[in-house]
């Protein structure tokens, strides 16, 4: 909001038209125009902002009283800076192939159990039988046959390991629990088609999001859940549900609703302080 986080909104066209545009201004410079959805909201934006105030968020707060401007803060830039840095750090470590995951059976069984207890119980993206079948297939192929199913298995292990870890935050990717499994999954995912009818690939995107969420890599999590959401929308547009089996439709519904739940959470985090009209959903 300008140098001190100040945003002024004003109308550029007829104030009485229900479809007039709203100009978003930072300082004195208009940066965007948005159509107002109704006459009432157009009226509302013209009112004098005597109490201009947002709900306090982790990234920004502006005290409504000018005398208390020293209590305001805006750390949006440092939030994005820090998040981009962690994303770059993760990419560096993925490219390095520096660590090999532990594929010993007792350890993997422990991780699978941790995944079921700490992730599937809260977010049953897939049922436990299906999860076990994926793990069984991967075990038979020696965790080598590159496919969306193996990617999903590695993500289950990555999630299981990070969820079982007690530390709240690891600054470096090299110290992130389960990162070796995550890196393997990313490498497989990059070789899969970006859009397909393969629901397992979409499930992988959601599990990547849960891993990144547990690792507090919010920006990267947002990127993945956005891709999962795009995949869902493409399948909806393709109207595949009419020809699909009940199992396919049920799996798709779970992916859609979990993607919706997650995307709302990440939008809250990532766009917490972008000054856009009707972004009140992003301000918490």
């Amino acid at each position, binding site marked *: 909001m300008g140098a001190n986080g100040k*945003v002024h909104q004003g109308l550029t066209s007829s104030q009485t038209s229900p479809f007039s545009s709203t100009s978003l201004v930072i300082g004195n410079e208009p940066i965007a125009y948005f159509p107002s959805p109704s006459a009432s909201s157009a009226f509302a934006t013209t*009112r004098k902002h005597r109490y201009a*105030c947002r709900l306090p968020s982790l990234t920004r707060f502006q005290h*409504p*009283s000018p005398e208390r401007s020293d209590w305001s803060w805006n750390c949006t830039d440092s939030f994005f800076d820090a998040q981009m840095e962690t994303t770059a750090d993760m990419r560096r470590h993925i490219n390095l192939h520096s660590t090999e995951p532990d594929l010993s059976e007792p350890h993997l069984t422990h991780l699978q159990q941790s995944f079921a207890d700490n992730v599937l119980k809260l977010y049953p993206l897939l049922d436990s039988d299906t999860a076990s079948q994926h793990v069984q297939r991967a075990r038979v192929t020696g965790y080598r046959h590159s496919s969306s199913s193996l990617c999903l298995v590695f993500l289950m292990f990555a999630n299981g390991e990070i969820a079982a870890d007690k530390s709240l935050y690891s600054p470096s990717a090299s110290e992130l629990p389960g990162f070796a499994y995550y890196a393997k999954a990313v490498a497989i995912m990059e070789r899969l088609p970006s859009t397909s009818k393969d629901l397992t690939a979409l499930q992988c995107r959601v599990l990547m999001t849960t891993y990144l969420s547990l690792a507090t890599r919010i920006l990267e999590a947002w990127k993945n859940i956005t891709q999962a959401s795009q995949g869902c929308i493409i399948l909806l547009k393709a109207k595949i549900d009419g020809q699909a089996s009940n199992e396919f439709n049920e799996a798709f519904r779970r992916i859609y609703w979990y993607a919706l739940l997650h995307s709302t959470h990440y939008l809250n985090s990532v766009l917490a302080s972008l000054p856009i009209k009707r972004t009140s959903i992003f*301000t918490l």
Partner: protein
Amino acid sequence: MRLYEAMVPLPSSTNEQEGMYLLAQCALLKLGAEVLDEVGHTSLSTIIPYIPGVVLELRTQIDEWYRHLPRPLRIELDGNSLGDTRKAYLRCTYYMLTAIVCWPFVIPLSIGSPHDAQTTCARPSLARISHPSQDSVSQLHHQPDKFVHSHDTPESSSAQPTRDIDIHELTTYRAAAESCLSACRSCLMYAEEILTQKFISTHVIVREYFCAAMLLLLNFNGADTHNSDIGAEDRQRLEHAMRTMRSWKVVPFLNQSFIAFERIAMAKGLKDTRYDDGVRT
């Protein structure tokens, strides 16, 4: 994604509790999106013309959600730990939504100047509020019958004895603001059991916790702590919140906001908890 909701039926589940939790989450998500969309946060002046109606409807919906929770997910609204992350998440988010709905009322009475408070309280539309938004959150669930009758708002308000309209409206504003603060206090108390561990939605709770603490802090007046029990309790709550948030300072992007919080807390006369363990964080 929200545009496609109608095209995608809710999933089913063979596990009863798991399926119920998903449905409860989805309902809370839709409700949360509506609350944040409708109440808006960029400017109170945008909200004033229709806030009574908005508060009335949204508070009804939030409490309907609570009252229709299936038995396995039924949340107790007492101070006990639930011992179930899923329920604890739902309880915390429930209180945060309640706080957000009534949040605009806190600004003119607690943050704005006295002149501003008088101006906003003179709006006649507020005289018609007769709803749970006037009650503290805990009262709502101990008096379920009261809420059913409150739907006939215009009749019940017209049946009230004639009185000075400004005083009535001021009371309503204060009651709504108190409802927000009461929900913030509950949110702070109930978030504790989630913040001590790491799970997928912890970052949502961290944000809710910080927001609730900040709303309470902005309303906190150090002088009140000597005159009222609530003031003294708020002091304890906020000092405890500072200690809780300190453990999250390891996340780099949270550090600055927590420091800002501590700066305001010091200015309001709260104890400097940074030195509690003898180490400056």
